């Protein structure tokens, strides 16, 4: 087998430290936002007793979903034995760890009592999907960590496939768990369906790959290492398949609801009458997140590096919009406790709940993104994660074996 040389990123240029500093600044903003929320309470957020999960959850769940998706490239290499993907695997694994860490940090810092994290780590209710997620996240860190070790340390190289397979299976369960956080909720019309679990898995494929592609391209462009089209175009096609699959799941989810009379009202809210939520659905989730990327990826445009990057960025933005619609949209629609009656109360029963995220929430969410990117930036400097060259000739040699 042709050998590939991995080398740390030099990381001494001004550009590197500027990137490092900029990300660090956002981490700092995130920390300040948390401190503000923690000191004054959730009263300083846009969240209330109607919209109980807000923008931080949108970011957190997006990052957690994307984390498991980012591992895909590595899984293709190790589990499905595609030699071309092998040099791409270490970055895939580290990105998965970093995104999960960023997402969990946001999730944890948005708790009403974020100072009591130790309680969450020592008291478990095994019937709770959240508890299962705590185990799934921890297991993911361990398994992907071991997997990364087998890739970086020659003495345990023979275990790569085993570790990779374990990590792959685990990540499927993990995203099932994330989807089931919502899928296991009986009270809201848009949740309470097993469909959310596979839907979240396919979403993770798309978001994770889009983020991976952008990070890969950025890392190679900024370090001046060659990155050939062979790699990028292969991954481009894969991204198109994933995005199309997301669109399919969204269509099935809403199509099913549209058939059920009891869900007509909530569907009308999301698809037609929901104002900002409706715009986010059609423009954000469908147009920006699915249709435009598909147009780019499936036409000649996608062969150009810059257009491919635009498509990836659109998938990411669309993904955040999709999370927003999934999490906020479902809460904004009032609970129907007395079917057939119009309800009103001092607790805003029977009315659509407005939500406008506050600045601290936005910065807390962005802080999570920054943590993930900062970890990746640091990791590529201290660990041998990136091949010196991914030009077409190097990759072609891998393919022959």
């Amino acid at each position, binding site marked *: 087998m042709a050998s590939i040389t991995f080398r740390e990123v030099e990381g001494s240029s001004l550009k590197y430290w500027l990137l490092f500093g900029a990300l660090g600044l956002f981490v700092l903003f995130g920390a300040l936002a948390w401190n503000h929320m923690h000191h*004054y309470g959730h009263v300083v957020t846009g969240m209330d007793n109607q919209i109980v999960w807000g923008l931080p959850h949108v970011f957190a769940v997006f990052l957690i979903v994307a984390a498991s998706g980012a591992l895909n490239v590595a899984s293709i290499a190790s589990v499905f034995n595609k030699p071309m993907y092998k040099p791409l695997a270490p970055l895939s694994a580290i990105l998965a760890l970093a995104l999960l860490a960023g997402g969990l940090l946001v999730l944890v810092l948005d708790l009403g009592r*974020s100072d009591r994290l130790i309680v969450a780590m020592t008291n478990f209710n095994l019937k709770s999907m959240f508890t299962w997620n705590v185990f799934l996240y921890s297991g993911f860190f361990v398994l992907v960590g071991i997997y990364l070790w087998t890739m970086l340390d020659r003495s345990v190289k023979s275990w790569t496939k085993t570790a990779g397979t374990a990590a792959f299976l685990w990540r499927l369960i993990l995203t099932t768990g994330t989807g089931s956080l919502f899928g296991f909720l009986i009270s809201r019309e848009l949740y309470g369906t097993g469909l959310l679990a596979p839907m979240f898995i396919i979403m993770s494929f798309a978001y994770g790959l889009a983020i991976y592609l952008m990070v890969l391209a950025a890392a190679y462009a900024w370090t001046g290492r060659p990155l050939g089209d062979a790699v990028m175009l292969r991954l481009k096609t894969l991204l198109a398949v994933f995005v199309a699959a997301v669109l399919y799941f969204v269509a099935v989810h809403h199509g099913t609801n549209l058939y059920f009379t009891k869900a007509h009202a909530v569907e009308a809210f999301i698809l037609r009458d929901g104002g900002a939520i409706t715009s986010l659905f059609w423009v954000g989730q469908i147009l920006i997140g699915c249709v435009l990327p598909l147009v780019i990826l499936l036409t000649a445009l996608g062969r150009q590096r810059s257009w491919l990057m635009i498509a990836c960025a659109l998938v990411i933005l669309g993904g955040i919009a999709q999370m927003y619609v999934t999490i906020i949209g479902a809460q904004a629609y009032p609970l129907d406790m007395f079917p057939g009656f119009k309800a009103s109360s001092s*607790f805003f029963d029977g009315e659509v709940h407005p939500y406008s995220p506050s600045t601290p929430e936005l910065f807390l969410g962005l802080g999570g993104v920054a943590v993930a990117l900062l970890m990746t930036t640091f990791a590529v400097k201290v660990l041998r994660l990136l091949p010196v060259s991914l030009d077409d000739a190097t990759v072609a040699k891998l393919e022959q074996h």
Partner: protein
Amino acid sequence: MNELKTMSEQVPQSAERRRFVGAAAAVAGLTVVPGVMLYEVANARPEDQPASSAVRWGMLVDATRCASGCSDCVSACSTENGWTPVAQSEHPRQAPQWIRKLQLEDPLTQAQINLPMLCQHCAEPPCVDVCPTGASFKRADGIVLVNRHTCIGCRYCMMACPYKARSLVHEPLNDTQKPDVPRGMGCVEACTFCVQKVDRGDGTTACAEACAAAGHNAILFGDLNDPESEISKRLRELPTKQVRADLKLNLGVRYHGI
């Protein structure tokens, strides 16, 4: 007569006093004080005994008696449990509401229904299922509570509750809590069936007392497991429904007239 009045007014309000008048009341009180007292003493468990599953506390709400525009139950709850009434809150959207008046209208017939909505104290509570730390729990006597010592404020229970019964405390309370009702910023809370009153043997809740005092008698609190309790008798006579009965959560609160 003057003496008796003083006695009956004081006893239900004071846990401490029960300790010394309890024995006397059990003997003497039974015969002389108004009807409320009879149930109190009958339901009282010794204070060093844990709540027992032999009892299941429940509530019967007669919506046909619930007056439009009356919110005495809500005020009484707020006073008893120390949460700020929403009208006085600086942040009404974020203010906790343990109990609220719901107005329902049938769009076709314009028929109107008034009722108080509160934690339904499910036998199969979704909030308890989803709580990651086990802070949401159901006591042996069926009361669903939040253990604030282990609540991390994740609000998953609020996502799971089909009745929107729970609130997060969004802002600091600055030592305004009642000694019997600890509450705190960042924790989730809801109706407790006035567990502090239940534990001291009052056998009723603040909302039920207030509703009776207003002369509506739309709220009846009692032991669903005791076939001889007032609530069990009334439940046998009146047709009642559970809210979102389709979820089969087996609610502790039953409504008549919905």
